[in-house]
C-alpha cells in the first residue's frame, strides 16, 4: 500500500493502539497499514495504468490517495491466488487482468489516439464507462466480456480499498474496535467510540 500520511492518521493510530482492539485484530490492521508494496506481477507500464484505474474507481488521485489497491491485486496475481470462484465465461484471473488492461490501452488509443494515463480525467472516465457498459467491442474486447472484467476489477479494488483502516475510519466504521463488545444496539444509540 502507499504509505501516505492522511489527515485522519492520528485518529487511526489512536484507535489501532487502543485497548478496544484485540491483539490479533491490532496485528492484522497494523501490518496492513504499514505495508508498502512493489509490483512484481505486472510490468511497470501496466502497473501504472492499473494504479490510475484503481484511483478513478475509488475517486482519488495521486495527491489525495489513501490506498492503491493495485499492489494487493498484483500480489494476489503473482501467487495466482484464487478467491474461490470465477465466471466460467472468463479466462483465469491473471490472464483476464492482463487482457483487460491491454483492452483499456487499445480503447484509449482508438478513441483519443493517446495513452490512457496521459488523458484528461473526463476522457478516462468516458473510457471506463464504455468498458463497464459493454460499449467497447473491438480488438481484445471481442474475446473478453468488458462488463464482467469491469465488475471483477471494481469489486476487488473496492474490497481492498475498504479494508484499509484509514478508509474505514473515514466512513466512521469502528467495528474493529470490538474487544469489549457492544452494548448499545438501539437505533441512534452510540457507544463512546462511535460518532
Amino acid at each position: 500500500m502507499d504509505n501516505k500520511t492522511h489527515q485522519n492518521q492520528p485518529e487511526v493510530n489512536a484507535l489501532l493502539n487502543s485497548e478496544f482492539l484485540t491483539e490479533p485484530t491490532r496485528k492484522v490492521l497494523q501490518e496492513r497499514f504499514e505495508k508498502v508494496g512493489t509490483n512484481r506481477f505486472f510490468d511497470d507500464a501496466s502497473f501504472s495504468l492499473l494504479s490510475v484505474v484503481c484511483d478513478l474507481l475509488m475517486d482519488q488521485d495521486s495527491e489525495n490517495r489513501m490506498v492503491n489497491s493495485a499492489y494487493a491485486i498484483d500480489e494476489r496475481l503473482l501467487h495466482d491466488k484464487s478467491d474461490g470462484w470465477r465466471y466460467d465465461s472468463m479466462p483465469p484471473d491473471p490472464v483476464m487482468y492482463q487482457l483487460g488492461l491491454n483492452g483499456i490501452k487499445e480503447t484509449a488509443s482508438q478513441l483519443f489516439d493517446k495513452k490512457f494515463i496521459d488523458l484528461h480525467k473526463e476522457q478516462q472516465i468516458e473510457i471506463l464507462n464504455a468498458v463497464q457498459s459493454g460499449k467497447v467491442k473491438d480488438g481484445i474486447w471481442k474475446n473478453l466480456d468488458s462488463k464482467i472484467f469491469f465488475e471483477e476489477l471494481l469489486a476487488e479494488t473496492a474490497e481492498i480499498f475498504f479494508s484499509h483502516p484509514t478508509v474505514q475510519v473515514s466512513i466512521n466504521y469502528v467495528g474493529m474496535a470490538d474487544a469489549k463488545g457492544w452494548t448499545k444496539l438501539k437505533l441512534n444509540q452510540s457507544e463512546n467510540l462511535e460518532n
Partner: protein
Amino acid sequence: MQEYSNKDSVDAVIIGTGAGGAPIIARLAEAGLKVVALEAGKFWNPKKDFATDEREQNKIIWNYERLSAGDDPIPFGKNNSGFGVGGSTLAYTAYTPRPHPDDFTINTDFGVGKDWPISYEDLEPYFDELESFLGVSGPTPYPWGPDRNVGYPLPPNPINGAAQLMEIGCEPLNIKTVPAANAILSAPYHQEHVGEREACINRGFCQAGCSTGAKASTDVTFIPQAIHFGAEIRTECFVTRLNTNESGQISSVTYLKNGQEETQFCKTVFICAGAIETPRLLLMNQLANSSGQVGKNFMANVSTQIWGEFEELVHPYKGIPASLISEDLHRPKDADFASGYLLQSIGVMPITYASQLCRATGMWGKELREKMAAYNHVAGINIHGECLPYEHNYVELSDENDELGLPKPRIFFSNGTNEKRLAAHGEKIMEKIWDIAGAKNTFKVSRNAHIIGTCRMGDDATEAVVNAQGKSFDIPNLYISDNSLFPSSLTVNPTLTIMAVALRIADKFLQEYSTSKN
C-alpha cells in the same frame, strides 16, 4: 488427542468436519468406534487466530477455484463455503430456524420438486437435541410450525438496528416478527464434554470466525465432544481418492498432506465435504453413480436482499446480523409459485457491503464513495426461499486443473420461473416494509445462497444417490452426510436440518453396526 496409524483399519473415516460431518464424528466416537476425521483445512484457535477483519478472514474460506456457469452464476468463495475444522459453520451466521413439516412434501403438495424419504417427525427428536446441545437462543413459545416438546434453552439475543427497522416496517402490514433463533449464546453455556462457552458480545462479526466461541460452529461444539470421546481430527488432509477392494467396497482413503500422498485404511467412509466437493470427489473417483444423479439437481435458496439508507444511525456492524425473523410467508396465499420463503433482517460488515454494492449497482468513483459514507445508516432485509431442483442445474468436472492437479468443478445455475416469481413476490413485500420503515436510496441484490442438492437421498436407487440412511445404493460402506443429500431446498436456512439428518444417519448406522456385531 487420540492418534491412529494409517495401517490401522479404523471403523470410520469422515471426510469433512462441517455441519454434516462433525455430528457423525462425535456420535460414532461416543459409541466407542475408532474414528478418524480428515479435514482439508486447519484447526483454528478462535481467540488467537480470528481478527475482526473481513479480509484477514479469507483464510477460513474455501478458495480452490470453482467455475460458475449458467444464467445466474453463483459466487462461491466468501459468503459461500468455509475451510478448516468447522467447515462452512465457521462462516455461518447461525440462523437456525426449524424446517416446516410440509417442507418435506413439496411434490405431494405442489406437484413439483421432490419429496424427502424422511419426515419432520423423523427429525424432530434431533432438533430438540441439537437446540439444547448447541445452545440455541430464541423465543419460546415459537409462533410458527408444530408445537415443540421443549422450548429454546436460552432467551433470544438482543436485536440489532436492521431488526428494529424491520419491526417498524412489518407491524402495519400485519406481518408477525420475532427475534430469530440463532445458535449463538445469549448467556454463558456449559455442556458436558464441550466445556464452558462465553456469551455473545454483539460484535456483529458472525459471517466469519467468531473469536469468543459464542457462535455454535462445529469446531467449538461437536468437535471438542468428538475429541473427548477419542476421535482423531487429522487436519490439512485433502482427500483425493477412495480406494476399493475386489468386492467393490471402500478399503482406504488417500489424501494429500503437505504435498505427500498418505492412505488411511478404514471399514466405512462418510463423505461430508459439502454440496460441491462431495459430488466432485465421487465424480473424480467414478464411484456410487449408477443412478447418474451425482452432481445433479444443484440448488441454491432464493436470497434476494434489499438494502436501504435510514435517517437513524444503524451501525450495521453491531449485534447479530440476522436477528429478526418472519415465517408468515412460508406459504403465501396469493402466491403464483410453489412453496414460499422466510424474511430476515440483516446487518453487514463494510467490505461485504461495498463488494455487493459494486456488483449489484455498478457504482464507482465519487458516487460509490458518497454511498459508502452513509454506511452507518444502512440496513438490509432479505428472503430465504425455495429453489426447485432442475436438470439444467448441476456440477461437473471441467478440464482445467487446480493447484493440487485436480479438475476444477464447473457449476451450472439458472433460476427457473418458480424462483423468479418467488423472488418478485418477496421483493414487493420487502420494498413495502422498507418504505414504511423510512428507507431511502434502496437497491436490490439478486442472489441465491446455500449450496444444496447434488447427491440426493431417496427410496429409489434409480433416482437417488443414497437412501434415507445416507447410505450409497451402490457401495454399502459408503455414506454421505451434508447439504448434498437434500432432495429439496427447504424454505429455511439449511444447517439445523443438515445436523439433524447427520445425527439420524449416525444413529441408523450404529444400530446396524451393533446388530452386525451381535
